[in-house]
């Protein structure tokens, strides 16, 4: 998977490293902005109220 990604990317090694770093940053940003806030309410460890 990652081997395929590395071979598919164009350019010399340092360009590929830069592209991969940018991709990783984009994935982290997307997780922090959309994915994690969407799944956090379904996690069981954040409940702080008493209810029936």
């Amino acid at each position, binding site marked *: *998977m990652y081997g395929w990604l590395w071979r598919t990317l164009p350019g010399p090694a340092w360009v590929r490293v830069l592209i991969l770093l940018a991709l990783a940053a984009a994935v982290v940003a997307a997780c922090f902005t959309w994915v994690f806030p969407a799944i956090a309410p379904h996690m069981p460890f954040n409940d702080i109220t*008493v209810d029936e």
Partner: protein
Amino acid sequence: MTSTREPVAPADAGARRRAPVGAVVVGVLGELLITLGVLLGLFVAWQLWWTDVVADGEQAQVVEDLGWAVTEAAPKPEPEAAPELRRDAAPVPAEPDHLTTFATLQVPRWGPDYVRPISQGTSRRDVLDVLGLGHYEGTAMPGAIGNFAVAGHRTTYGKPLNRVEELQVGDPLVVQTQDTWYVYRVTETQVVMPHQVEVIAPVPNQPEAQPTVATMTLTTCHPMFSARERFIVHAVLDHWMPVAEGVPAELAVGAQAAGGA
């Protein structure tokens, strides 16, 4: 992932590069699992660190936007100037609309900088995860006879009730609304199961009783990083004071030291 490097001879490149199907499947599966592990680690970092960064800023902004919230520690009042403590019936604000921030909480035990907004409602997505402390709808308002019940996060989203276990009996919980200070004092802490709603009854733990005094209750998760139980703090209204008359002595500089903190 194929483990073999590019072959030198282009003629049999296709044949050499192709690893057995089983190895490819296992390789991809392994990479997916590693990726999942990294993402789970990221989620923990987001939950325990990033939500605090965001919520701390948001809650400080909410307090600032109120316009009337007193956040500066007051100079210690001169002994002769100390106003008489009012213990008669306190003014009670009307219960506001859902999401409305109507009060702040200051707790000298948690440091002079501790000021958090209290908003109406206890839904997580729009109140507790964003605005900080939430007032249980239908419970008493500050100063009212009955139980002013408030929930807050302990380990995430700005963790307004992070240090709840440090509270001692007698510690002041200072609530400010636009016009009035309410100084509650801690009477008891307890750990209960999440379904024990009697802790926020008008008379805490006595669901059938008619209230005769103004009490306050904080609820948060327990143990930390778990939702198995709830940590509960009960307090009773000690005195109140119009905001126009100054700042309660409990919040004065050095009050913590005097209070034995």
